C-alpha cells in the first residue's frame, strides 16, 4: 500500500502539546508524519512548505492554536492568511491543495491530533503520490 510521507509543523504551545497528550493517553495513529516543533505556527514560511513538497513530502500539516488562543496573540491568523495565499500557488503548480492541511489543535485535544493524522494519511493515500514534475516546480 502507498505510504504517504507527511511533514508536520507544530506550534509548541498547542498542537505539539496536543501531540504529547495523544502519547500520554496512549492513542494510536498512523506513523506517517514526523513533527517539527516551532514556537508558533506563524514561523512557518510558505517556502518551508514548498521545500517539503520538493523533498518528497506527500502532505504537509500545520498545527496551531485555536483562533483566539494563540500564545502570541494572533500568530495563527497570520498562518491562516499565508496558507490561503499559498493554496492558490499550489493549484498552479499542480499540487492538490488537500495536501496542505491547516488544523487548530489545542493542548487538550490529543484525540483530535490522532484523528487528524489518521484522516490525513487516508486522504493522502487516496490522492496517491505527487507527480515528479510538480515536485520539481515546487523548488
Amino acid at each position: 500500500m502507498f505510504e504517504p510521507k507527511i511533514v508536520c509543523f507544530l506550534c509548541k504551545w498547542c498542537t505539539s502539546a496536543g501531540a504529547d497528550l495523544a502519547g500520554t493517553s496512549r492513542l494510536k495513529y498512523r506513523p506517517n508524519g514526523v513533527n517539527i516543533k516551532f514556537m508558533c505556527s506563524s514561523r512557518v514560511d510558505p517556502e518551508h512548505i514548498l521545500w517539503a513538497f520538493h523533498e518528497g513530502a506527500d502532505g504537509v500539516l500545520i498545527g496551531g492554536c485555536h483562533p483566539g488562543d494563540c500564545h502570541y496573540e494572533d500568530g495563527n491568523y497570520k498562518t491562516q492568511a499565508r496558507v490561503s495565499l499559498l493554496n492558490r500557488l499550489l493549484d498552479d503548480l499542480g499540487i492538490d491543495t488537500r495536501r496542505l492541511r491547516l488544523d487548530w489543535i489545542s493542548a487538550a485535544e490529543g484525540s483530535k491530533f490522532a484523528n487528524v493524522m489518521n484522516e490525513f494519511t487516508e486522504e493522502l493515500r487516496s490522492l496517491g503520490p505527487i507527480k515528479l514534475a510538480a515536485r520539481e516546480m515546487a523548488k
Partner: protein
Amino acid sequence: MKRIGVFVCHCGINIAMTVDVKRVAEEAMNMPGVAYAQDYIYMCSEPGQALVREKIKEEELDAVIIAACSPNLHESTFRAAAEEAGLNPWQCEIANIREQCSWVHTNREKATSKAIRIVDTLVQKTILNESLEPIPVSITKKALVIGGGIAGIQAALDIADSGYKIILVEKESSIGGHMAQLSETFPTLDCSQCILTPKMVAAGKHPNIELMTYSEIEEVSGYVGNFNVKIKRKASFVDWSKCNGCGLCMEKCPAKVPSLFDRELATHGAIYVPFPQAVPNKPVIDKDNCIYFKSGKCRLCEKVCEIGAINFEQEDLIVEEEIGAIIVATGFETLPVPNLVEYGAGDVPDVIDGLAFERLLSASGPTVGEVRRPSDGMVPKEIVFVQCAGSRDPERYRPYCSKICCMYTTKHALLYKHRVHDGQPYIFYIDIRTGGKGYEEFYHNAELDEGIIYLRGKVAKIFRDGDKTVVWGTDTLTGRNIEIAADLVVLATAMIPKDSTAELVKKLRIQTGPNGFLSEAHPKLRPVESINSGFYIAGAAQGPKDIPETVAQASAAACKVISLFSRDHLEQDPAIAWVDEDLCGNCRICISVCPYDAREFDEEKGIVIVNEALCEGCGSCVAACACGATQQRNLSDSQIRSMVTASLGGE
C-alpha cells in the same frame, strides 16, 4: 564539523518495546556530524546523566541529542547535565521518541524508522545550533491571586507572610468562596466557618495583602516577572471608605432578591452583604434588582445612610498593576439541577443539591440549622441522597469522578441523623471512594452507628407525586429495583469549573483540559504550575478536590511564587529573532507583524532591528521577512530546510 553525541533512552520498556533503540543508535552513528551514539535504559537517571557528562568529555563532543521523552519533561535536566560537562546548554537538544513515537504507534518496524528520522531531524538542527546566553530580565516582586476562596486566601497568606506584596482579586463582594457556605466539614466535623473566618480576617488585615473584591480581571499582558494586569473594580454604589457596616440600608431595602449564597432558599435586599461574616463587611447594590435602578424611584438606602456612603453615580473603575506572578484559584461550581432532566429538571421543589443542603444544615443558614424541605417547610423523615448526579456519566454529563461527593454525602446523612433522630437516610451510590486520611474510618462509623441505608445503584428517575418525591433506583446487590417515596432528595451534583473560567483563561492565555479545568504543566511532577511560565494554579479550578488538598496545593503554588521572587532576575530564552544588517531592505513588514512592538526602525543604521528585551521568539517576523534578513536563533531557515529533508528520510 561539530562532533555530536546521540543518546537513545529505553525509558524502561516505554520506548524500547516499540522502538528498536539499538538500531536507532546504530543508524545515528551514520548520520553526518555524529561522533558518538549509545542507548541506555534510563537516560534521566543519575547514571544516565553521568554517562552523558562522561562521554562529552571523553569523546570531545560539541553537542548532544537525547532521544527520549517530551522536552517538556527533561529538557532542563539534560541541558543542566550538558552544562556541567562544559557545553553550552543550547548545544543540547531533545528528540521526542516517546510521546510522539513509541506510545502512539504499534508497528515496531515503522516506529523505529520514524524514531530514526526524528533523531536525524534534530541532528540536522544541532549541526547549525549556535551557543547562546540567556537574556536577563527583571522581576516585579508582587503577586496576583485570582479567586478569594480558601485556595486563594491560603496562597495569599503564605506569600504575604514571606514578605512579598499580593493583590487578591475576588469577583464577589466578599472573600470566602464555597467553604463559607458549608456547615461542617468531613471527616472531623469542624464547623467550616469557625476554621475559615480567622483566615478571612487575617487576609483582610494583612499589611502585604491588598483585597480587591467585587473585581474582575480585565486584561493581562506581558510575561513571567513582568505582567501588566488591568483589573475592573465593579461599581458597588457604596463608598466603602465611608461605610461603617452598620447594616441599616440592608434592613430597609424593600427589594427581595434570591440569595445565591443561600442557594436561593432565602432572600436578601438589593443592597446586601452575601453573609454576615463577610470580609470586607461592606454592602453592594445589585443593579439588576435594585428598585431605583429599575424604576427610577426609591433611594431608601440613601435616605437612611447617615454618613452618606451610598453613591448611585459610582462607575466601574479600571486599575492597572505591575505583577510578577499570577496564581489562578477560581474554584468550582456544581452542575445545575435543571440540567438533570431525568431528576426533575429543576421543577421538583424538594430536589435540591448538596450545597443547598449545606445551607439547610448550617446554623447560620435560612432554617437556622433545622432540616426543613423547601416546598412546605416540613421536616423530612425519608430522605434520599443521590450520588454521581452528573459525574461518571461520559454519555450525557461529566465523565470524571467529582471526588468529594462520597464523603460529603455520608456527612450529610450523618448530620441529618443528628438533627432528625427518627428520620431515615438512604444513599444511592455506584462506588464508595474514601481515599484520604481518616476518610474510610468516617464512612465505617457512619455505616455502623447511624442507620444509613446504602443502596448500590444509580437512580434513573425522580418525580413528584402529591407531596412526595418518588425516586426510582435499583439495588444491584440484591438485583431488585427500589422505589422510595421521599420527603426530600439531595443530589450530589458534579463539580464543574466556574463558568467564568473559560473567559478568564483566554485573557491569561493558559490552558484548560477537555473538561474545562485548568491544565497543570505535568500531572505528577509539576501539579501547581501552568505550562505557561509565571502562572500557577490552585484548588478546584484545576480539578475536583477537597479542602485539605486545596489548601496543600495553594501553599505549594505560593511556595513556587516565593521561590521565583527569591531570584535577582529571570532568564529569558535567547532563541529570538535577529537581523542580518547587510540584507535588510527596510521594508518594515516585520514591524507590522510583531505582536510585541519588538521590531523597531533604527534611524542610525537605516534598518529595522530587534529589541531583545521585548522579543518573545514567535518567529512571525522571520517568516514575513521578504529578503531573508531576519532569522531566528537556532531555528534559521537553513536549519528548517535541512530538518525537513531529514524528516522525510532524505539526504
